[in-house]
């Protein structure tokens, strides 16, 4: 698939925002959806709807098969060993909560340590904080340098005999840092410590190969990879899914239910209680197909080129400060502007149809580390073009005019 006309596949880009063509630079928050995903949702509800895995009528069988097709395709997308290692959740947040809760229940005791980093999104900190509160666990933060790179040596030093799990992001939603997961997993392996990777930001933008990464857990959300909301995903090595207790209890996750005893279904069903977001899981398959039809290499190259183009242009604008300068950077550009607060920037560029995010981006630890209260963030998706970057930069320059800055 060629990229030059890709916007035409996303119906939202035919809409005007404040009378201007939409320049969407908030894909780190959530991505827009191609027509194939929307059609799938519509078609499933109109022509194919049934709950899955329960009834044996024709619709139920076909819906179950479709649901399973997504599992297989996702398994291939991230190169997992088997489809049983793929658990559907509500989102990546729920996937991380699933691990923190079940792993914590079984393996974390008072004084045990959980090692995370200063780069983490709140969704890879708060679930572990629950264990700190409930079990008296200790959370340690591997520090970053001013460029926004994790200082691997320091991370190493923070590992002790009490470290039970390492949970780390694959790609920072603020600095765009691509974290060397393989290096961290190698360190962890030597001490027999499992690693959870928050792949929310990486899944849409870089190649995901969980076998190659060799991580124990990998979480991401469908809505960031051009898929529907309401679906997230947890990859876990089979041994963990067999060993860990179930998470949410209810229908569909049981084997046998008696008055005095309950046994559970094998994974993945063990972790998928209740009616799942069926139509959304089915439509998620279309977003994976969409990503594949372009090819990850092309996605990486396109976004790299745009990121470099944007960085060069932004640096030329008076009083812009780019947050972080990591060794490996993806298309996430957070910045501040002297004399204008990020919220004011966001409101002003919105008038030009430019959608960016302002605030702490659910990463207050990182902002505190960098002595920032808030930043503005432009994040790139597959549909963005150089024209988008030009419009964005022009709009940023207009902020200075609105604020009458010289």
């Amino acid at each position, binding site marked *: 698939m060629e990229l030059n006309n890709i916007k035409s596949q996303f119906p939202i880009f035919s809409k005007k925002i404040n009378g201007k063509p939409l320049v969407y630079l908030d894909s780190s928050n959530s991505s827009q959806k191609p027509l194939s995903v929307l059609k799938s949702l519509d078609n499933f509800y109109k022509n194919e709807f049934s709950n899955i895995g329960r009834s044996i009528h024709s619709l139920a069988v076909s819906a179950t098969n479709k649901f399973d097709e997504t599992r297989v395709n996702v398994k291939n997308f991230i190169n997992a060993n088997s489809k049983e290692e793929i658990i559907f959740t509500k989102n990546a947040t729920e996937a991380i909560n699933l691990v923190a809760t079940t792993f914590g229940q079984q393996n974390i005791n008072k004084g045990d340590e959980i090692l995370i980093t200063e780069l983490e999104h709140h969704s890879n900190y708060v679930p572990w904080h629950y264990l700190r509160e409930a079990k008296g666990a200790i959370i340690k933060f591997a520090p970053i340098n001013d460029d926004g790179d994790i200082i691997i040596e320091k991370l190493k030093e923070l590992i002790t005999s009490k470290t039970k799990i390492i949970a780390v992001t694959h790609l920072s939603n603020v600095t765009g840092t691509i974290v060397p997961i393989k290096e961290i997993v190698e360190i962890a392996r030597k001490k027999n410590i499992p690693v959870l990777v928050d792949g929310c930001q990486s899944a849409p933008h870089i190649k995901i190969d969980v076998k190659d990464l060799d991580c124990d857990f990998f979480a991401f959300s469908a809505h960031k990879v051009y898929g529907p909301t309401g679906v997230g995903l947890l990859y876990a090595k089979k041994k963990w899914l067999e060993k860990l207790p179930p998470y949410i209890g209810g229908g569909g996750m049981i084997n046998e239910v008696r008055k005095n005893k309950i046994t559970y279904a094998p994974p993945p069903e063990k972790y998928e209680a209740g009616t799942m977001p069926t139509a959304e899981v089915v439509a998620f398959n279309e977003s994976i197909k969409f990503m594949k039809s372009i090819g990850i290499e092309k996605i990486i190259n396109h976004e790299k080129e745009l990121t470099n183009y944007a960085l060069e242009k932004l640096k030329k604008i008076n009083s812009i400060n780019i947050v972080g300068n990591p060794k490996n950077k993806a298309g996430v550009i957070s910045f501040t502007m002297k004399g204008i*607060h*990020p*919220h*004011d920037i966001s*409101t002003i560029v919105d008038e030009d149809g430019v959608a960016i995010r302002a605030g702490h981006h659910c990463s207050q630890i990182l902002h505190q580390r960098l002595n920032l*209260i808030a930043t503005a963030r432009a994040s790139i998706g597959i549909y963005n073009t150089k024209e988008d970057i030009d419009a964005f930069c022009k709009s940023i320059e207009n902020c200075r005019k609105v*604020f009458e800055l010289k």
Partner: protein
Amino acid sequence: MDLKQLYQDIILDHGKSPRNLGKCKNFNRDAKGHNPLCGDEVHVYLDLNSENEIKDISFEGAGCAISMASASIMTDLIKGKNISDSKEIIKDYLGLVKNKSELESKKITDNEKTKMMSLSGVKDFPMRVKCATLSWHTLKAAFDNNKEKVNTEKFDK
């Protein structure tokens, strides 16, 4: 929507050079406020005399132009008034930035009215209303001697 309605000259002026910024010397009452959506924090300090008049008022905080200007204009306008009149003004202001088109209070001069009206543009920018109300809710908490940190998420729904 017009950006100039939001970023009027008065707001840009107060936003860039906020009045009464810092901790006033003899404060005997204070309250903190917080906007969890953007992380903005404000701390309002009051020097109240025995007649419940505001001898001095100031604030600390960092935020967007709207929140800085709103705190600056508020402190300017409240200084010298008594608590009861101030509460009436707060109520009037909160109505103005959310839904009312006019100010009703008789306790404000025309000049003060103009300053308050300059913030009424946020009505057209719903995501920014909390920026304009944070310091005012916090001032009310200081009057009520409320020690709990004000959270904008509990207001302005």
